[in-house]
């Protein structure tokens, strides 16, 4: 095999390297290009389209291109956030793969000078009846939990989704959010000739070598043998590194700081140099290694975790030694900043690699891929679903839905995460968004992560739009105003024209919603090649979103509170069961036209809900999504074990009304005295809102056009919903 193929490069890419260098690269240089020009690091197949994103806004202090995006939340504070995939490592080594996913995203946050205050995750698996899926679920959840719990960052929200398209390719998208004072923003920039380049934190070993390249191709049977490309996490080390870095950032000696993630020392050094328009010279002999005999190539591309590169003002190195010594961590000067734009790697003073830093960081070829609408789309969206029979016993159907893994309580998952450490979690997992208070202010932030990949499969544009809108509804229902997005775009191979069509249209869909809702995309990540020999994943553009809760006392949860309260349905219910959870769980069908999304209407509806919350008119708010009105209604009842008496008048078929996933809808409760004011708010905005029933003791009764269609007891429903996942996992 040609040497360039061994590092995952194409012949034309190799030729471009030769052209840049004016000579053939040596082994170390070639390895460095191999990892930096991999899809994972270079975004060569996505860069051209990512430029389309709406990334600007009054609150944006840092957009895409840095380790994390930053938005202003007022009072002198800012929020840093980012989401990133760790799909391939988690597929072959679930525990470590997921754990290091959390570690990596945490470092992206504290490298910006922010203290991480919350983690979220979106994890996706194949069918839960599979033993392999159960093993992945156990390992991934334990990996996420062990890492975040040990570092002491609460995992406050997330989603766990099951679909056969993830049978071979589970997805692990880890998101982290941090807080900082605006004046403390740090960047990954190397400037100032003669300033010291320091490597701090963990030692460097042979783990994770070539991880970036490993993540940039399809998962095959051979991938299992690549387990050594998966890094090993040490959350205790991360905790110390985080405290030491945050202490260091408060001093005046840091010029720039960057974590060592994919492509290790190579990416950290060339990216900091490239951003600063400078060069960097490092001597690998100074790097503290875990094992003897590591070559310059291995040291440069090792992905050992819990390490940071710090550019320190010359003469102030002792301050760094002092702080890292206190925390019992290594800190070594490995080189210096130069002005020649080169990344020069020495070994004991002898040059072993020398390439233009910017050519590594930003020089990869940009691929403008061709795309074509895949044939399956027309076939599936035109499938006739209107003539499916209506189930005879809708009470039974509802119980089946509540037990289905996508709807069932995810307590089995989130109870393995410490979601309260830090004593700021105001709204805990199990509802719409997680809400944190911001100590020292009256404010809070609401956080969520969402994607409906089934919609995206059937219609990437509308699906991506509705994922953004669902995230915004989750934030709104919790009392927050959505302000920014971080996205994790998980797709199959970009070399497939159909996949590239999905990718392109998802981006366009996100873009439309993000512009109208004024929620710019401030950071993100692309993960391609999520496919195996047998199947490809559905397009999964995961949307992480942050919102501001102006007065934390107004934060809202989904739970019904008091008997006698009125139940209000906001938004219009249409015959939209295409792509629904109902069709999938009950009929095993994933087809039809996905629900339409009218972002302007969503925006108005959100304004109405927020206004009702801020005026203190309502007691609970829940967005309607997977499973439709009836599932959302059930979820509102469980915590306080209250029931409902609901009467619906509709022209829709009973099951279609109950399980339709029409967008832009909420369920609110309020005491009877406030109903008039609430309805008035929505009427003024031109949004449909009506009282459909009231909260009662423990019976769950729903009548449609005067006929009783559901009659259940809330305890029975709760036990079906709550017991489902533990029951499946303990089988």
């Amino acid at each position: 095999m040609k040497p360039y193929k061994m590092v995952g490069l194409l012949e034309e890419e190799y030729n471009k390297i030769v052209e840049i260098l004016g000579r053939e690269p040596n082994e170390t240089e070639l390895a460095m290009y191999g990892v930096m020009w991999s899809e994972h690091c270079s975004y060569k197949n996505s860069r051209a389209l990512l430029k389309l994103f709406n990334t600007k806004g009054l609150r944006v202090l840092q957009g895409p291109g840095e380790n994390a995006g930053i938005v202003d939340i007022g009072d002198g504070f800012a929020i840093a956030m980012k989401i990133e995939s760790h799909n391939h490592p988690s597929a072959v080594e679930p525990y470590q793969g997921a754990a290091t996913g959390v570690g990596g995203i945490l470092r992206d946050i504290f490298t910006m000078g922010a203290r991480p205050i919350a983690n979220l995750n979106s994890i996706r698996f194949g069918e839960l009846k599979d033993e392999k899926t159960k093993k992945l679920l156990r390992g991934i959840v334990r990996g996420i939990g062990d890492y975040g719990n040990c570092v002491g960052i609460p995992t406050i929200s997330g989603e766990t989704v099951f679909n056969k398209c993830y049978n071979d390719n589970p997805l692990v998208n880890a998101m982290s959010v941090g807080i900082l004072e605006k004046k403390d923003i740090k960047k990954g920039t190397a400037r100032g000739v003669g300033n010291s380049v320091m490597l701090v934190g963990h030692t460097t070993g042979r783990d994770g070598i070539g991880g970036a390249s490993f993540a940039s191709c399809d998962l095959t049977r051979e991938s299992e043998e690549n387990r050594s490309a998966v890094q090993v996490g040490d959350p205790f080390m991360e905790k110390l590194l985080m405290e030491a870095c945050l202490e260091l950032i408060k001093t005046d000696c840091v010029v720039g700081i960057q974590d060592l993630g994919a492509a290790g020392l190579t990416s950290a050094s060339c990216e900091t140099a490239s951003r600063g328009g400078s060069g960097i010279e490092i001597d690998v002999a100074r790097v503290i290694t875990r094992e003897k005999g590591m070559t310059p190539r291995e040291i440069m591309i090792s992905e050992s975790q819990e390490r940071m590169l710090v550019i320190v003002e010359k003469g102030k190195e002792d301050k760094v030694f002092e702080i890292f010594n206190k925390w019992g961590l290594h800190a070594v000067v490995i080189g210096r900043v130069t002005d020649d734009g080169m990344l020069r790697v020495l070994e004991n003073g002898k040059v072993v690699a020398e390439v233009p830093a910017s050519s590594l960081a930003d020089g990869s070829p940009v691929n403008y891929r061709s795309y074509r609408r895949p044939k399956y789309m027309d076939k599936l969206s035109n499938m006739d679903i209107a003539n499916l029979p209506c189930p005879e016993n809708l009470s039974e159907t509802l119980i089946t839905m509540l037990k289905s893994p996508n709807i069932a309580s995810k307590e089995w998952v989130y109870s393995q995460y410490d979601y309260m450490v830090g004593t700021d979690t105001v709204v805990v997992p199990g509802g719409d968004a997680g809400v944190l208070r911001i100590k020292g202010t009256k404010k809070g932030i609401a956080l969520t992560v969402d994607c409906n990949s089934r919609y995206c499969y059937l219609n990437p544009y509308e699906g991506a739009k509705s994922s953004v809108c669902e995230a915004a509804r989750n934030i709104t229902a919790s009392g927050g105003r959505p302000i920014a997005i971080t996205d994790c775009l998980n797709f199959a191979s970009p070399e497939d024209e159909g996949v590239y069509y999905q990718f392109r249209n998802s981006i366009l869909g996100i873009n439309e919603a993000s512009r109208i809702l004024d929620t710019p995309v401030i950071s993100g990540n692309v993960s391609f090649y999520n496919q195996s020999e047998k199947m490809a994943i559905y397009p999964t553009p995961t949307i992480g979103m942050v919102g501001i809760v102006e007065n934390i006392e107004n934060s809202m949860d989904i739970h019904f509170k008091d008997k006698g309260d009125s139940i209000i349905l906001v938004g219009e219910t249409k015959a939209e069961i295409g792509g629904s959870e109902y069709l999938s769980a009950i009929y095993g069908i994933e087809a039809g036209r996905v629900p339409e999304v009218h972002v302007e209407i969503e925006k108005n509806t959100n304004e109405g809900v927020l206004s009702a919350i801020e005026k203190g008119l309502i007691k609970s708010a829940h967005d309607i999504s997977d499973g439709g009105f009836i599932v959302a209604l059930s979820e509102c009842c469980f915590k306080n074990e209250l029931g409902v008496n609901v009467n619906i008048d509709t022209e829709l078929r009973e099951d279609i009304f109950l399980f339709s996933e029409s967008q832009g809808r909420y369920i609110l409760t309020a005491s009877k005295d406030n109903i008039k004011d609430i309805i008035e708010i929505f009427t003024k905005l031109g949004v449909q809102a009506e009282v459909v029933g009231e909260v009662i003791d423990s019976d769950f009764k729903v009548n449609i056009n005067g006929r009783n269609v559901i009659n259940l007891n809330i305890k029975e429903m709760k036990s079906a919903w709550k017991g489902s996942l533990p029951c499946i996992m303990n089988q």
Partner: protein
Amino acid sequence: MKAGVVVFPGSNCDSDVYSVLKELGADVKYIWHGEDKIDVDLLVLPGGFSYGDYLRCGAIARFSKILEGIYDYVENGGYVIGICNGFQILTELKLLPGALLKNMDLKFICSDCILEVSNDNTFFSRLYKKGERVNFPIAHGEGNYYADDETLKELERNNQIVFRYVNNPNGSRNDIAGIINKKGNVLGMMPHPERRASSLLGGTDGIRLFKGMIESFK
């Protein structure tokens, strides 16, 4: 009252308990694990993962410099409260009997948790009523309290069990959630009272524990 919250490498509930004590008006400070003098009335060993808990939980922290003087401090009547990882450290120090094993179902559990106050006649629990039910959350992987039959009998006989689980979440023997030493000045408990000190965060059941201690010194 002067209180000190020990910061071990890997402590992560240190600032949570510090904030609650501070809000309640205590004179509180952090004590770095490398210091050698305990000059406070109440020493808090907070939750977290000291030294990563890579060995048995608390097994390394017990050797830290600040804890060298803890036996004398306790002997002389100094008060100690160990929460979660702090409880584990106290059993490793043998200041409290027994050990904390892995949870019965081997998983980490984060959840609200109803406790019953079994002894309200202690320095720590005096603002609660015996038999009262309180909600302090738990968040641990190794909180399954174990002691041999003889020790359990003694704990019961001496009224050393302060808190019991109402629905035992982790397999603890005799539903034990928190115990004191014989002398009554060292409390270890797995649940987190500092996480229930604000109505915004789901309740204020935990406040009385800290208030009780602070007021004892007034």
